[in-house]
């Protein structure tokens, strides 16, 4: 059972995508550990008030990508990933955010040196 999945219906990102991204993120961040059982399509549809088609689409794509695997008949569980995959899964979400930040830096005319310094400072700054 995933700890927490939240769907924003109005942000234009298809709900199946949002589900996939959140599950992948939680796996990469270690919130969902290998072997964890996913809620059934039916149960998750009821919990999130989502069309069951949407959930089975997200699940089957995650299965195809190797994030989930089927066990004991129908149960879907988090699959063990290779070290390389784990690394990629961790870096991908951050890369997306940084790509957006890079666009903004160019738009604002911030130099590479300035931008890198800012990122380093942000990494080092203590949590508020």
């Amino acid at each position, binding site marked *: 059972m995933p700890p927490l999945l939240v769907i924003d*219906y*109005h*942000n234009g990102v298809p709900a199946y995508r949002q589900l996939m991204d959140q599950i992948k993120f939680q796996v990469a961040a270690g919130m969902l550990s290998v072997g964890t059982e996913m809620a059934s399509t*039916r149960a998750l549809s009821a919990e999130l008030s*989502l069309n069951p*088609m949407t959930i089975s689409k997200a699940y089957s794509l995650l299965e195809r990508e190797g994030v989930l695997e089927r066990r004991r008949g129908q149960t879907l569980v988090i699959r063990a990933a290779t070290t390389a995959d784990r690394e990629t899964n961790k870096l991908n979400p951050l890369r997306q955010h940084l790509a957006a930040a890079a666009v903004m830096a160019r738009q604002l005319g911030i130099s590479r040196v300035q931008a890198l310094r800012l990122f380093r400072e942000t990494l080092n700054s203590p949590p508020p």
Partner: protein
Amino acid sequence: MNLSPDSAPFVAENVTKSYPGHLALDALNLEIPAGHVVGLLGRNGAGKTTLIHLAAGLTLPSTGTCRTFGTPTARLDSPELGRLGLVQQESRFIEWMTVRQHLDFTASFYANWDRDLQHRLTEALELPVDRKLAVLSAGDRQKVGILLGVCHRPAFLLLDEPMSSLDPIARTDMLDFLLERLRDDGCTVLISSHLLTDVEKIVDWVVFLKAGRLVENSSFDALQESFAEWTVTAPEGGLPAAFAEPYVLSSQGQDRLARLNVRTRDPAAIERFARAHRAEVKARPLSLDEMFPLLTIPGRDPS
């Protein structure tokens, strides 16, 4: 999606429906895919209610053929009608009956009326069962219409603006209930509504009519993934007043900054565009509300 006509609960073949001085539907070819929740969208007068009436057999096509459960709608009979549920925006009732009487009356026509479902819905929607229909509020009348249309657990549910008079809480209940029917009965739902923020929570397929013509018939995911708003910034200026790329549906802006509505499934389009215009592009997906006006833009087929 390829479906044999047998598995589609409703098929329209070259259907035209005209009323005196008015063409409601024009050469419509459409299959409603089984097991889906199909959002029937379009502006007022686009032909949505006509289409629902055709599917229910309430009216017959002027030319062409409509089949519901594979049967031409002129020959629909109890086996098919018993599997069909219709909820209209303003249902007609027997006004002197109480809600309870009316439910009993309608139930008597259906062998498979689900009493448990009726009681559960009556409670969930907080219906005053001992009041006469004649004195009910618009919202409560709409709730009764919903109950009368769904308690026989139809395989094909036609909903014409079923939530227009409901408050937000009743609408949420209604959507949850529809999802429950999907899970339990695997029914097909065709729902017309102007309440797009409600509809987009449950639909997985979109049919869009414009002035009696079919202009969109695709999965909701595919629609969401093809439309976007691009914010284009060119630090050195030089953006054109109008963009020639065929996937640009509309644009506004000036020399250095433009906002575009685009429709493309090509993931490389954004990069090519950025290079061609020496610009930075930030893409944002669109909600159904934002897509709606773009679906009415004529003359482009950027697929």
